[in-house]
């Protein structure tokens, strides 16, 4: 089975802090994604990556950056956390030539 893990299930940070969310997949997938999930808005794509050191903006990249130095790891960075970034963050991966995405358990981030 595909396994996608995220570094934290719950995280509380203060406004202005730099926040790192880590995601690791063990299936040698080329594609990785970061979403945020908010009630009534569903999932919104923040950034995605098709390969190591490659990144593409999704629908809501403002206030976020990403890093993909190794194929299995995709990090989401909040440069200066704000209260409107309080959300559930979901990481996903997908193999090249496949269509379904596999999700991690999510990180519920609260910014106070």
């Amino acid at each position, binding site marked *: 089975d595909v396994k*996608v893990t995220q570094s934290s299930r719950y995280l509380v940070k203060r406004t202005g802090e730099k926040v790192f969310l880590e995601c690791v997949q063990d299936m040698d997938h080329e594609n990785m994604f970061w979403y945020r999930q908010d009630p009534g808005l*569903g*999932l919104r794509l923040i950034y995605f990556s098709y390969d190591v050191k490659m990144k593409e903006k999704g629908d809501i990249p403002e206030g976020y950056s990403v890093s993909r130095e190794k194929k299995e790891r995709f990090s989401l960075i909040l440069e200066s956390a704000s209260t409107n970034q309080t959300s559930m963050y*979901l990481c*996903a991966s997908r193999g090249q030539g496949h*269509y*379904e*995405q596999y*999700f991690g358990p*999510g990180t519920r981030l609260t910014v106070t």
Partner: protein
Amino acid sequence: AQSVTQLDSQVPVFEEAPVELRCNYSSSVSVYLFWYVQYPNQGLQLLLKYLSGSTLVESINGFEAEFNKSQTSFHLRKPSVHISDTAEYFCAVSEPDQFYFGTGTSLTVIP
């Protein structure tokens, strides 16, 4: 751009009753269709998928979905729900380079 519509944001249903969760998408050009389930405070799990072949696809826990190209729909059904089916359900559509999610349907099974 593709859009995915889940008209029902909340569906309450009594235990052992049938349920249908509706999903419509806007474009039928080379799409692949999925249903994901999300239990409270967890990530999304793939429930079932349609890639090609038979338009009726089934999951291991009794759900099924039917791809209807003319109606651009991919409704999810279960003939008899269980308490453990209480969860959020997301319909998703994949085009070659994009993945689109509906806003989700919260299914609540009432004892």
